[in-house]
């Protein structure tokens, strides 16, 4: 069964902006799914429709087979949402926020308090349970929203930019936590601007741009489609121009940094052989951006060029 199925989903706002232009998307039960796209691509609108914070214009949404037009309450009870913006009452205590949220999902107060302890401990917020939410740090506020979303133990957890503005240590702790709840069977849909995050966590990826899905496949298949990668070489000696490399495109970023684009089928050994032959010493090497980021940029760029060509 699909945890989430969107069919021909459209949304046109009152100002005429068509945020979704007929999206078809299926998320398998138990998957860890990345929904990626540039700002304004339609990610948050799609999530808003699924969680009933945005009214759709057309199409259907099913959550574990429950159509939101016919069985809205059942569909809602399957979903936990961690929104992009902080949306809890800043004047309430951490404990009150999570216990009340459980109540809105019909969980009695005794069980809600037990779960509050469980999730606040797991997300390292138990010591701050009596603090007013406004006094928490940015990372703590993000973790509080995750704890709140888990209080009714949803089968589908949707996280919209959950690690935005969070330091790297907290982000990695959150990754571990999300991996563990996914391993326990919770389907997770994640939107993020940190593509390293999506590549690390997710098994399936969809890329949305201009209100359309432009790519949807397993992470492994998507990465296989990457035709070229850019590598950055830190040079031992300063140079004024890039060396000429047969079959490769090379450019100098600065006098000690050389960028070389390596296409699929080409070998890095060949690059090193040519550099050695020209007496160019290399101290270290890295990917310019991570692989998913490279693919994302190329897909979105080609999408905008195609749209531009259509407009002309």
């Amino acid at each position, binding site marked *: 069964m699909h945890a989430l199925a969107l069919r021909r989903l459209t949304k046109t*706002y*009152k100002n005429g902006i068509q945020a979704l232009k007929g999206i078809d998307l299926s998320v398998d039960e138990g998957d860890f799914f990345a929904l990626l796209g540039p700002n304004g691509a339609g990610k948050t609108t799609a999530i*808003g429709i699924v*969680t*009933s*914070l*945005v*009214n759709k214009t057309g199409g259907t949404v099913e959550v574990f087979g429950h159509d939101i037009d016919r069985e*809205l*309450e*059942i569909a*809602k*009870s399957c*979903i936990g*949402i961690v*929104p992009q*913006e*902080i*949306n*809890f*009452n*800043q*004047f*309430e205590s951490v404990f*009150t926020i999570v216990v*009340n*949220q459980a*109540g*809105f*999902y*019909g*969980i*009695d*107060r005794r069980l809600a308090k037990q779960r509050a302890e469980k999730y606040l401990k797991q997300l390292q917020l138990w010591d701050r349970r009596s603090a007013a939410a406004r006094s928490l740090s940015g990372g703590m506020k993000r973790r509080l929203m995750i704890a*709140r979303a888990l209080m009714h133990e949803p089968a589908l957890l949707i996280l919209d930019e959950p690690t935005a503005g969070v330091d790297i240590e907290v982000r990695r702790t959150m990754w571990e936590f999300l991996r563990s709840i996914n391993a326990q069977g919770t389907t997770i849909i994640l939107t993020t601007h940190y593509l390293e995050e999506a590549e690390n966590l997710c098994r399936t990826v969809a890329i949305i741009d201009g209100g359309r899905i432009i790519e949807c496949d397993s992470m492994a298949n998507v990465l296989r489609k990457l035709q070229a990668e850019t590598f950055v070489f830190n040079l031992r000696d300063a140079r004024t121009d890039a060396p000429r490399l047969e079959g490769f495109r090379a450019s100098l970023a600065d006098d000690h940094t050389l960028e070389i684009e390596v296409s699929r089928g080409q070998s890095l050994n060949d690059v090193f052989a040519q550099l050695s032959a020209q007496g160019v010493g290399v101290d270290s090497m890295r990917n310019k951006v991570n692989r998913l980021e490279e693919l994302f940029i190329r897909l979105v760029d080609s999408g905008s060029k195609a749209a531009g060509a259509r407009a002309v």
Partner: protein
Amino acid sequence: MNGVPSRLRCDWIGFKTIIIREFGRIVRIWGQTIVPPAVTATLYFIIFGSLIGRRVGRVGGYEYMQFIAPGLIMMSVITNSYGNVVSSFFGAKFGKHLEELLVSPLPNWLIVLGYVMGGVMRGFFVGTVVTIVSLLFTRLALAHVFAIVSAALLTSIVFALGGFINAMFAKNFDQISWFPTFVLTPLTYLGGVFYSTKMLPNWAFVVSHANPILYMVNAFRYGFLSTSDVNLTLAYAIMVTAAAGMFTLAVVLMNRGTGIRE
């Protein structure tokens, strides 16, 4: 049977949770919710009751202080029922924590009812406080307890719903103060709180009867003084119709997502 609570039980727990949250809010900001109405009521009793009231004489066969006490209690019930819901709901909308309820499986009619009960709760708290204050200045007999409770309950429901509908349409804080300032307060002051309509010239008597608050104040006053300027059956018909109509409107607006969903 299988340990999964029924939809009915889930809804009941959700409804109780809204009420607990609203109660917590009223208590947390008691300096804004409970104390100011008590101070205002005391000033009204001192100025209109003790100082001016002595020169007014008797109204409807009662001392002026006794006559205005039920009206002042009802005035506090009206403004607090309205004020609680408009500020709580608009605050939740503005601070985005209304989304906690909108994404939950609670049906819209129950969300409306939860907020309305919060308004009724504050209306009754403040009404009780003002009643206690009034007893320091005058005597009040509980002539018809059912009339007192039912009139206060129906009135607070109507104005809590008014606050809810205002908050749904409001886009900023100015728009939640506009209705109380320019509509609610004038209607309340001209709704027979401080005078009997029998004291008015004919045209004002007729115009006053188009004011629904006149019926609410008089139904409530009847509970204490056994006297009313209006037909009580008509008063209850107006209150019940207004409550049912406004509840239906609030639920329709919620279902449409007016002011809360794109």
